């Protein structure tokens, strides 16, 4: 059998001792959870802990255990619908791998750790922060946070960084997720939020879904799309794979990964040529159309087809349906955004929305499909490297002055904008950053080129992690603090429609574990810098956040816990006061943005978009190819994504038995034509190799993928991690990494060493 030569690329350790002690192990329904004679003590209405849709659900609680789930039929977004992850999420609670103590590194122990009293662990973290900042400056200690935290916690993390530690270097895992859409939305609309509630999908004649595996990554959105089609909508899907939703779509555009800008430019040209643009809307409500039109005119059908790999007939058909529609909804997700030209990809899609004039009206919509639980709220209130609460900018003097006044400090003491998450790790690698505290982030699995990430973390003088399970990243920490699961705390999140909703606590933290916000405040106290970090609970944090966000674009000042509970959520913006003569948002806030005649704090009443003139911006989107194209050595495109039964880095879902059993291990998808060429059959072990790393997995030979592209889902760690191969090239504006395209070669291989030693989820 011929195999590729062993490369010099690094391979992750098998970590046997740590896995034995901390998992991931699989939990199944058992004991109190299967005993049909046990009735729950209470049903807690809350939301899923996983994706950005935030389906409403009820957790069934007996004593301090979540024993099951019951649909919450009244919650309007999902009306009882749930995906498999939501249904089985309760098995993460009372899990054998749950961290019940703090731990510190211990080289003499097989697990690599010994337990440590909570207070001693907090003191150790505070001591390390103090020492590193004293010796190397405030910015030498960095924070990594996450968008699965409640908005209150993300607000606290930003305040902890900017007021308590006064470090410039805080960023979050939304950098891997939401930032391209966020940056593009700000450039085009002046505001970063899906423009419409999902109910607007139902009134659309054309639903265009680009780079979004809706069925697997946002399953509940499927019913909105199918229901639109029942009413006569045509569904167009742009994807290199025939995803489950693409299977029966009306028009499938099998785009070559990394070529989306070319596709949308080509569609815009067809709209121009055939007079399908809404000239009246463009003149009254937008700026910059002429330059964009001139650029688009170069994108003939033939050229667009050559670059995108989509036949001219399909592009023409898509443009005609989109161009002639009276109503429409365009959705995209990471497939468009995870690119070194991710912002440009999104802007090119927005250009065809603006050219159509179909936004700000019922049945006329646009939105990114947020990935993480709080992907929306988590990117608004100050845990991004350049941001302050309310969607304010750390680089803006007026914004600094306002937040400093809320926090009772001098604006001069606020740090300047810091660097993005990947750059934080590069600075750790180069020695500029010496210490790091990470929460809700598993970069050893989730960041591209993750052999580099592991190396960078290894160079830190001090690394602490707050987590509820010992993630692949926490395994590398000097100190691990036991944090809280979503069901162990209360707070708000903002789901993908911009609806602020409330997570309700169902159970208490076990053992020495603490709610995350308590841990952060305990560290601040141990540092002797607790001023401003003495909240007694999430609602008190939210009340301060209301003030801090007031007058900003992400204005939450009119939202209260009570209003959220009474209305099944409240859509921001929801200011507490509006100028005289302006209609204040209704009880539900502002479900639809950009309605004609609407008021906003930037345009006042000049127009519906969030710029001083009230007009939306067309942005030039010249096509630029991916950072690493295929060549003789690495002739295939690798693209990565998700499967329905797993979530992100798998730190939770790889511990839930029924979800692991659904799709146990990553497989490399390839087309039979390619497989035949390479002598690979379904189920064979194959080795995929890039310039950065390699990965040996079983092949899944399917006709549902472009023959020039292979796909690997990214939820696994160690030697099964797709991100050993991916490239750390980033978008120049959003700094999102290019997960969706890099060059690889693939060959048949011998079974890997891990096959006999690890369970599928490990």
């Amino acid at each position: 059998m011929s195999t590729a030569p062993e490369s010099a690329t690094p391979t992750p350790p098998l970590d046997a001792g740590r896995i034995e002690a901390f998992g991931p192990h699989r939990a199944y329904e058992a004991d109190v959870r299967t005993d049909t004679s046990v009735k729950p003590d209470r049903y807690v209405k809350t939301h899923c802990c996983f994706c950005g849709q935030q389906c409403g659900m009820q957790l069934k609680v007996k004593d301090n255990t979540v024993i099951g789930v019951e649909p919450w039929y009244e919650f309007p977004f999902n009306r009882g619908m749930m995906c498999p992850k939501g249904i089985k999420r309760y098995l993460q609670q009372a899990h054998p791998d749950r961290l019940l103590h703090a731990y510190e590194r211990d080289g003499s122990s097989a697990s690599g750790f010994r337990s440590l009293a909570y207070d001693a662990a907090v003191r150790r973290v505070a001591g390390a922060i103090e020492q590193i900042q004293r010796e190397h400056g405030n910015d030498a200690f960095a924070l990594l946070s996450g968008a699965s935290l409640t908005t209150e916690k993300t607000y606290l993390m930003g305040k902890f960084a900017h007021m308590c530690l006064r470090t410039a270097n805080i960023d979050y895992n939304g950098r891997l997720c939401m930032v391209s859409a966020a940056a593009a939305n700000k450039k085009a609309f002046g505001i970063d939020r899906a423009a419409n509630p999902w109910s607007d999908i139902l009134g659309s004649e054309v639903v265009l879904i680009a780079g979004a595996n809706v069925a697997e990554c946002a399953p509940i959105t499927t019913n909105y799309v199918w229901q639109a089609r029942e009413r006569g909508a045509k569904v167009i899907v742009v994807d290199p794979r025939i995803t489950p939703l693409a299977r029966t779509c009306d028009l499938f555009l099998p785009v070559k990964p990394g070529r989306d800008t070319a596709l949308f430019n080509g569609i815009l040209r067809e709209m121009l040529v055939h007079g399908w643009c809404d000239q009246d809307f463009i003149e009254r409500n937008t700026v910059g159309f002429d330059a964009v039109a001139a650029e688009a005119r170069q994108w003939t059908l033939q050229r667009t087809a050559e670059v995108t790999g989509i036949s001219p007939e399909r592009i023409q058909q898509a443009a005609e349906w989109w161009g002639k529609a009276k109503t429409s909804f365009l959705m995209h997700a990471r497939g468009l955004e995870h690119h070194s030209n991710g912002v440009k990809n999104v802007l090119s899609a927005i250009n065809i929305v603006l050219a159509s004039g179909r936004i700000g009206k019922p049945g006329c919509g646009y939105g990114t499909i947020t990935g993480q639980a709080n992907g929306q709220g988590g990117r608004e209130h100050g845990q991004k490297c350049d941001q302050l609460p309310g969607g304010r900018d750390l680089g803006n003097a007026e914004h600094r002055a306002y937040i400093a006044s809320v926090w009772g400090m001098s604006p001069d003491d606020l740090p300047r904008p810091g660097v993005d998450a990947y750059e934080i790790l590069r600075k750790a690698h180069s020695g500029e950053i010496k210490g790091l505290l990470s929460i809700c982030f598993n970069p050893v699995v989730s960041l591209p080129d993750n052999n580099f990430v592991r190396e960078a973390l290894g160079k830190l003088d001090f690394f602490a992690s707050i987590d509820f399970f010992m993630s692949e990243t926490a395994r590398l920490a000097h100190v691990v603090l036991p944090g809280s699961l979503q069901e162990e705390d209360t707070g708000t999140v903002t789901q993908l429609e911009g609806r602020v909703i409330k997570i309700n606590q169902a159970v208490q933290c076990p053992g020495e574990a603490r709610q995350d916000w308590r841990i952060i405040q305990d560290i601040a106290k141990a540092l002797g810098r607790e001023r401003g970090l003495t909240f007694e609970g999430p609602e008190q944090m939210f009340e301060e956040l209301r003030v801090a966000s007031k007058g900003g674009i992400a204005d939450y000042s009119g939202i209260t816990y009570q209003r959220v509970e009474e209305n099944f959520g409240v859509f921001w913006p929801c200011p507490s006061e509006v100028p005289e003569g302006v209609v204040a948002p209704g009880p539900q806030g502002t479900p639809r943005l950009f309605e004609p005649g609407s008021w906003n704090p930037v345009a006042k009443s000049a127009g519906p978009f969030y710029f001083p003139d009230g007009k939306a911006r067309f942005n030039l989107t010249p096509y630029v190819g991916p950072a690493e194209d295929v060549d003789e050595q690495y002739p295939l495109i690798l693209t990565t994504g998700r499967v329905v039964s797993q979530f992100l880095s798998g730190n939770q879902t790889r511990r839930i038995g029924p979800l692991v059993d659904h799709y146990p291990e990553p497989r490399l998808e390839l087309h039979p034509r390619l497989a035949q060429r390479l002598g690979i059959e379904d189920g064979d072990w194959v080795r995929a190799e890039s310039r950065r790393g390699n990965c040996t997995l079983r092949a899944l030979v399917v006709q549902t993928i472009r023959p020039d592209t292979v796909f690997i889902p990214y939820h696994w760690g160690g030697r099964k991690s797709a991100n050993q191969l991916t490239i750390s090239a980033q978008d120049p504006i959003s700094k999102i990494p290019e997960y969706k395209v890099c060059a690889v070669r693939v060959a048949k291989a011998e079974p890997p060493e891990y096959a006999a030693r690890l369970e599928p989820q490990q």
Partner: protein
Amino acid sequence: MTVPLDLEFFVDASRCIGCQACVQACSECDTHKGQSMIQLDFMDRARSTQTFPVVCMHCDSPTCAEVCPADAIKRTEDGIVQTARKPRCIACNNCVLACPFGVPKMNTRMNLMMKCDMCYDRTSVGLKPMCASVCPSQALAFGTRAELLALRPHAKPVNSFRFGAQTIRTKVNIMLPASAPLDVVDVTQAMYEPSIGQQPFDDAFMEDVFHRIRPRSKP
């Protein structure tokens, strides 16, 4: 309590996305926690992402009950074919072998046949079955025929199935396109129809790729 006769169950495989929410939700049912009674499989994964969920069809004249030597399987008046009664079931497997839809499963640990009872504990008190409650694509749906047809004007519910010489009417409907001339699904005939599959990768420019990949026989 019984299940109101106007409430029906509908399966529309064209909507199915294979997410297995139904399979996972079935095992959350209070009467058989930890056990799922639904089977959901790819039709032919090599060619398509098409999946098909199979629940008990709740036949008017249930073959499983007819072949049961212990009279353990009852069809209640509301048309629900109940799971085997534990005191009677002798775990003989007759029902497993006889069901034309392949629904009943033998639980060898419990020595008991178990199958979908349309969540009788829920549907008999006015709740939807777990699977149809959670299904994100509503490939599985529960409600009145009028409600469903108002939501799905292009679909036609069919509940007659032909297996060779036997025709079976069921409480559960399969959704076909409204334009389909069928009132009976001929299952035997369908077994000989061509396999599913799509070939939308009609990219004339893709040949470039294959120039770069040397066939395996010439390494």
